[in-house]
């Protein structure tokens, strides 16, 4: 049996198409422009993590002399290596933004080694001295924005019960839950946050169940840390609860329930990076920042947010902007009664201990394992 003929015939068709294509003119990258590749793990319109990056890419597109190529739903396997190579070989891309955490090791590191003259900017990785110099990792201290969200939530709750729909108990997520809770308890010392872990980044059914179950237990303000907050926001709003958003502004999904939210500000960072590179400036390989550095931002307040809440939240935001506020400082007790940060110790945002967070602070109802 000769099934090889199928692909050979396919090739023939392809060659015909090639001839046609060349007469139509291949739309390749023009040499004068810089081509930048953006790679997303999910879909660009997920009202969440990937949309935040796509909004950043959209801001880069507006710059003169820049061409942007994008690819969505690229899994964290060698598929991302091939996507990067395809963007380099077929589109002439010279700067890459692979935006998912799992792309970094081994895929981005491997590609950075293979293409030493090109630049790779990865979101979320922990670049270290051993890694290629043409690779870099950037991320934002979004727990600052979560803290401000928490303050608004603390003023807005009537039951004193807040809900958090979370993906996995990893340091990144725990830090957001803890910051949100500490912010809420600044506004309302009796407030508690009930947390439910769904087990993965995109589990719409479990996210909806978690949302409903939290509301059934009396929770009246919810937030989340999953890739696409759309499910939580829409379900909570339908049940009459209030929400704080995450990743991007979800107020169009629930204008009457959306208090505020913790958003990425890639629209500010990506054009800045591109301008730095075109001007020949070096981007630090390990790049971090929060509200002050304009890597994260807080959504505009919904109209139901009280004047008192706005004032308190704005005051704290101003302190973050001037760099004089620390979220994680001693004495800090976890929800099992153990002191996790001793009195007198301030863990600033850059503190590597925070990258290893494995506890939930007092006021959080839930367990990490």
């Amino acid at each position, binding site marked *: 049996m000769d099934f090889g003929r199928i692909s050979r015939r396919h090739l023939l068709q392809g060659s015909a198409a090639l001839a046609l*294509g060349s007469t139509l003119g291949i739309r390749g990258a023009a040499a004068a422009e810089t081509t930048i590749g953006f790679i997303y793990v999910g879909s660009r319109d997920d009202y969440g993590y990937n949309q935040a990056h796509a909004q950043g890419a959209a801001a880069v597109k507006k710059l003169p002399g820049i061409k942007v190529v994008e690819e969505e739903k690229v899994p964290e396997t*060698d*598929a991302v290596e091939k996507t990067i190579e395809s963007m380099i070989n077929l589109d002439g891309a010279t700067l890459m933004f692979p935006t998912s955490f799992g792309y970094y090791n081994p895929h981005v590191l491997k590609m950075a080694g293979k293409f030493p003259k090109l630049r790779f900017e990865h979101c979320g990785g922990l670049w270290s001295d051993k890694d290629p110099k043409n690779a870099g990792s950037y991320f934002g201290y979004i727990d600052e924005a979560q803290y401000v969200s928490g303050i608004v939530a603390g003023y807005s709750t009537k039951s004193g019960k807040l809900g958090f729909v979370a993906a996995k108990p990893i340091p990144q997520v725990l830090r957001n839950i803890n910051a949100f809770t500490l912010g809420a308890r600044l506004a309302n010392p009796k407030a508690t946050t009930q947390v439910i872990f769904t087990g993965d980044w995109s589990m719409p059914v479990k996210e909806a169940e978690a949302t409903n179950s939290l509301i059934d237990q009396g929770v009246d303000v919810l937030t989340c840390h999953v890739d696409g907050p759309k499910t939580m926001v829409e379900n909570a709003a339908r049940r009459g609860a209030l929400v704080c958003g995450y990743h991007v502004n979800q107020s169009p999904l629930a204008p009457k329930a959306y208090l505020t939210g913790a958003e990425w500000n890639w629209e500010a960072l990506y054009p800045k990076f591109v301008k730095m590179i075109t001007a020949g400036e070096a981007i630090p390989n390990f790049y971090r920042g929060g509200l002050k550095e304009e890597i994260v931002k807080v959504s505009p307040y919904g109209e139901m947010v009280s004047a008192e809440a706005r004032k308190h939240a704005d005051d704290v935001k101003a302190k973050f902007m001037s760099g004089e506020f620390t979220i994680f400082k001693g004495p800090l007790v976890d929800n099992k009664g153990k002191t996790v940060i001793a009195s007198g110790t301030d863990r600033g945002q850059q503190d590597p201990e925070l990258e290893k967070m494995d506890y939930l602070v007092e006021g959080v109802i839930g367990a990490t394992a």
Partner: protein
Amino acid sequence: MTTETAESVEAAGIAPAADPGFLQRHGARIEYIVIPGAALVGALAVFGGFVALYGKNPLDLYFYMYYGAFGTAFSWQNTLTRAAPLILTALCTALPAQLGMVIIGGEGALLIGALSATAAALALQGAAPTVVQIAMVIAGMIGGGLWITLSGGLRQYRGVNETISSLLLVYIALAVLNHLVEGPMRDPASLNKPSTREIGAANMIGTIPGTDVHWGLAFGLVAAVAAYILIYHTTFGFAARVAGGNIRAAKIVGLSVGKLILTVCFLAGSCAGLAGMIEVAAVQGRTNANLAAGYGFTGILVAFLARQNPLAIIPVAILLGGISASGGLLQRRLGLPDASVLVLQGIIFVFVLASDALYGRIGFLKGKS
């Protein structure tokens, strides 16, 4: 449809006019080429129409599909890399199909194979790389093999439908993987991406010399050819096909059907387990949730498109690898959403399944047999 007429004319052209007996003798074989080929062309034509509805030129579409999949040396490597795991996972469906069983749980065997291979490598740290690699192959194949044997055993001894049980075992495998990776086997340094420890750079199996394609392709080719010989040129394969044709007849002639089912399921699972081992040893270097990339599910599609023939799996896997390799280019150049590639896969699947009805019904191709 004019394309299909062209296809038939082309197929008729294959037969030398001087030999009137040619179609008589080879008609049945030619059917196996003409019918899937026509189904493919039909599917591409419908997909072209679908894309035209989006206001894109179908000729551009065909050109970019060819260019992204087979148009350059890089495109070929991209295609073959993506095809490599599919050959092995397709065998996981195609082998039991000889016995009339529909196993769709290759993804689970792949995950268990990856876990077993990783465990073997971690247990043998310090041994010579060849020893570690051989141990990984054996562990991966046994792990995956036993996983599908579970489905076979449930069918044989408890009468449980193997399609349902193998699918459900995928979710169990994923839960086992997540539990081990986030618990007992976790590398404490993997903070935000729970993973096992790395198997070590020296133990990686690398790429086929002169190419960028990993050794998984060679493993897949060997396994497919071996499966073909086993099924069509050994008494074991003959017995399996007899049992697949009529299980009662097989029992009456004294075949041990139970043994056949368990052995074939083990072999099928070991192919998928090998795919998992290769993902670890050639791509990821460790086990984490990234391994659940859906290769096992795409393998089902490959097996059905290849009509469960182990040799036909090779070109079909390359075709689907090519479609997925060109998917990125379609997103970047034509602005089509990622889902468009899935739409094409779906259309091809429907066309090929529907074309089954044509076998033996095309008048001029009717052979003697």
